[in-house]
């Protein structure tokens, strides 16, 4: 039996009818949830930045807050920045050596 004969007797498996009937509904839910996540993320990021701005303003403009809290906050922010730079550099390093980077994600 040659390849053409072999493949000629083979067909792709199909899905049950009810799966096809619900295909659009199931996809529509994914579409809706995708939009939901986008709006949720944008809102959350905006609120987080606003909260951070308010928090830092309060810390550094309020003379009653002890100096060690101000220093600790500055150190915390410095640590976060160092971690962010370090992770970003690692990701960039991995990306440059990724054999599959031409594959769209």
């Amino acid at each position: 039996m040659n390849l053409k004969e072999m493949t000629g007797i083979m067909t792709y498996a199909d899905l049950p009818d009810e799966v096809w009937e619900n295909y659009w509904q199931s996809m529509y839910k994914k579409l809706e949830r995708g939009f939901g996540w986008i709006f949720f993320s944008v809102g959350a990021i905006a609120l987080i930045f606003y909260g951070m701005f308010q928090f830092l303003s309060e810390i550094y403009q309020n003379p009653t807050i002890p100096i060690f809290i101000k220093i600790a906050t500055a150190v915390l922010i410095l640590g976060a920045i160092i971690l962010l730079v370090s992770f970003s550099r690692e990701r960039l390093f991995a990306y440059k050596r990724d054999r599959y980077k031409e594959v769209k994600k």
Partner: protein
Amino acid sequence: MEIKTGDKKALGLLVNKHKKTAFRIALGLVGNKDDAYDISQEAFLRVYRSANTYDTDQPFLPWFYRIISNLSKTWLVKRSKRENKMVDVDDASYLLIDSSNPEDAMVKKETAAYVRNALLKLDYEDREIITLQHFRNMSYDEIADLLEISKGTVMSRLYYARKKLADIMRSYYEQG
């Protein structure tokens, strides 16, 4: 293409028209029904999100095929990283044989299992070209248009892909 304006009804019509094609293309590339189902749905979502980049003067199917193909490649890379193997060869139910003739059904069934497993062992590009020619019954010209390569390249890729498939099949038969 009304989808460009964000029309969800138009997307629904497009989905109903092409959902089975999308599923079968993905199934041929990833060899797993659940993954093919997810990939086909994700492909339609990509069409909806990137409809603005689609040139309406060009045929829809090659553009759509590239989306499915890119998603399938990414899926396989992720799966190979996760499972440390290219494809799940245990899930061999994605290709079925025509068992209308019970006389040689056993031989056909065994052969089909060899073909399935051999296909799943091929490189992505080889499996893609074999799938398009042998399972989607596309002509050289149609494949060339779809993959945006020359007819000569299609023939050459098919030649080497068939050769590799035959080698894998031969090793199966030798192992018994």
